[in-house]
């Protein structure tokens, strides 16, 4: 499992800079926002957390279709499925998701405080947004694994994966944004939505790989 994790991380870092493109996309989305809504610093600081979350969501969706497709192209996906009597397939998928998250989403989370400065956010808001992104984005990747597995046999599944996954990620977005606002605005609670966000992530850490494994098995035969 450790070897698989390292292999996926190395592939993600090396293969055509797929990980870097995600960060660039995230930067571009955030940079476009002030042009769209105007350079009003007050407004930007109010919508900043939401914009960071939406940018991270889109950037995460961007690379999801490659999660299994590259492995399917070179045949290693079949080997992983065949090895499922030694290593549980959901566990393998969970490791793959973690590797994918480490390579292509963790940099976004690390970059988000800097972008928060661009959006004229307070220090507490920046910290809360980075924390909620750290806790919440694994859920997006894990939900996305289901979509990627379902659409793996399609020749051009990329857009379809995003369309399928986007409605399912809305709860993550709701609780992520409300937790980041809860840290700044006084009457709104921070801990409760944050804990629900963590619960969603843990829940999909179980459900996502199981469903993805079922989909991959049915696509293989």
């Amino acid at each position, binding site marked *: 499992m450790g070897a698989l994790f390292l292999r996926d991380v190395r592939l993600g870092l090396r293969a055509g800079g797929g990980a870097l493109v995600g960060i660039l996309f995230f930067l571009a989305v955030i940079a476009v926002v002030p042009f769209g809504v105007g350079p009003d610093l007050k407004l930007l600081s109010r919508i900043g957390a939401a914009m960071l979350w939406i940018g991270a969501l889109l950037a995460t969706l961007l690379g999801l279709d490659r999660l299994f497709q590259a492995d399917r192209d070179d045949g290693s996906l079949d080997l992983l499925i065949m090895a499922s009597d030694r290593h549980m397939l959901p566990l393998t998928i969970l490791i793959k998701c973690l590797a994918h998250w480490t390579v292509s989403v963790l940099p976004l989370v690390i970059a988000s405080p800097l972008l928060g400065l661009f959006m004229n956010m307070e220090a507490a808001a920046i910290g809360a947004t980075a924390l909620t992104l750290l806790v919440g984005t694994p859920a997006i990747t894990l*939900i996305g694994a289901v979509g990627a597995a*379902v*659409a793996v046999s399609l020749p051009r599944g990329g857009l379809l994966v995003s369309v399928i996954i986007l409605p399912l990620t809305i709860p993550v977005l*709701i609780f992520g944004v*409300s937790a980041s606002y*809860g840290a700044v605005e006084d009457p709104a609670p921070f801990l409760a*939505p944050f804990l629900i966000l963590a619960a969603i992530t843990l829940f999909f850490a179980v*459900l996502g790989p199981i469903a993805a494994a079922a989909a991959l098995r*049915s*696509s293989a035969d």
Partner: protein
Amino acid sequence: MSDAVSKTGRWIDLANPTRFLSLAGGILPWLGGLTVLVLAIGFWMSMNAPDDYQQGSTVKIMFIHVPFAWLSMMCYTIMSVAALGTLVWRHPLADVSAKAAAPIGAVFTALALITGSLWGKPMWGTWWVWDARLISVFVLFLMYLGIIALTRAMDDPAKSAKATAILTLVGFINIPIIKFSVDWWNTLHQPASVLRMGGSTLDPSYLKPLLVMAIGFTLLFFTLHMMAMRNEIWRRRVTAMRRVAARSADRGTVS
């Protein structure tokens, strides 16, 4: 297949598509007639319902809006049961049922949204509010469209059946999460004029037409669903026959 036979006693009668077709052919005229009858009674009752002292005659939008909303939820539940049937019992008609139900459910959801916004314009003064109830129904609509897109994206019905079933089940687990987010969303943001309607707070003069309309639209759903399933079975048979014909034609020219 054999263990499915031993387990599912009653349903196995329907597992044979031919038997389902004959059953559907027998039931459909009656079901259709009953649907028309109940809907006509419901329409007459709702036309005779008194106007609300505040809302005037627009309250009658409720008689179609609420059944549409209920059915949009019920249709997804039926699709989830069918998805379970595909994955667990491998019932041969389950994926036909799921595939046939998805467009109907999408239409019902869209109608619920449209009638809701038509009702919202005179009552709330706006077509659309980002209220938790509206969002969750809109998300349901998007999920229907995603499922339809996935079903249509694959050529092989056997393959798309499993993929769609998995997606449907994952989506169903999301529904309670969306429903729970209702309370959160409303406490954190300023509560919009939420439509609150318990059955008990409703006057009998409104409740009775509403229930009749709900039963009528449920019957309509089952009629349409059965017709769509029949169409789907026929479509698959035509495809299979075409394949056989193409194969034999090919053999005839080559050899």
